[in-house]
């Protein structure tokens, strides 16, 4: 399975979820969930 490394640092823009995020799962799991649909981060 392809994998992406997303580098974050102080001052990095927050990540926004296009589909609703209900807060019941860890952030990184949510990211994996979204990428499971074949998406890649893109700026707004």
């Amino acid at each position: 399975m392809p994998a992406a490394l997303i580098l974050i640092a102080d001052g990095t823009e927050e990540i926004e979820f296009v589909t609703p995020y209900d807060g019941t799962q860890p952030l990184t799991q949510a990211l994996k969930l979204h990428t499971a649909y074949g998406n890649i981060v893109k700026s707004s």
Partner: protein
Amino acid sequence: MRASPCRCPTFNPPLRSCPNALRWHPDVQIHHKKPCSAYLIAAHTTPSCSRGVRILPDEPSIDKIAAEYDADILILPGGGPGAKTFCDSDTVLELVKQFRERGKFVGAICAGTTALVKSYEKEAGKVQKVTVTSHPSVEKEIRDKGWSYSSERVVVDGRVVTSRG
């Protein structure tokens, strides 16, 4: 239309209200037609993002990254202050260089392109520069360093993917 507020107190106000936040966008599937995983790594232990949200990364140190994660793409998100943090970190710049040298994809968003550009500086004359885009606020900086620049929203040149932000 106003987005429904997130019920999670950690994300209040809802991130969706932030116009400059990153988005997971369904139409960017240039390289990942198959399902993929994403791992967050940090230049610092617990980064505080541009609007104060603190993110707990999967891997708090990037020193071991190359050995432990066999990733296909390294993504450098935007945010001017975050991009400056990347540019000031020799470790980050070395990681970008490693991905390029191994023939892997590097993606840069918004001002994150400046870190990509800086990673080339130590190899001046040895590595061919590619066409990139970025947030307009850093366009001149990139052009002044001799890079071919495009104003397209997303630019793909070889294995380097950049977006406007």
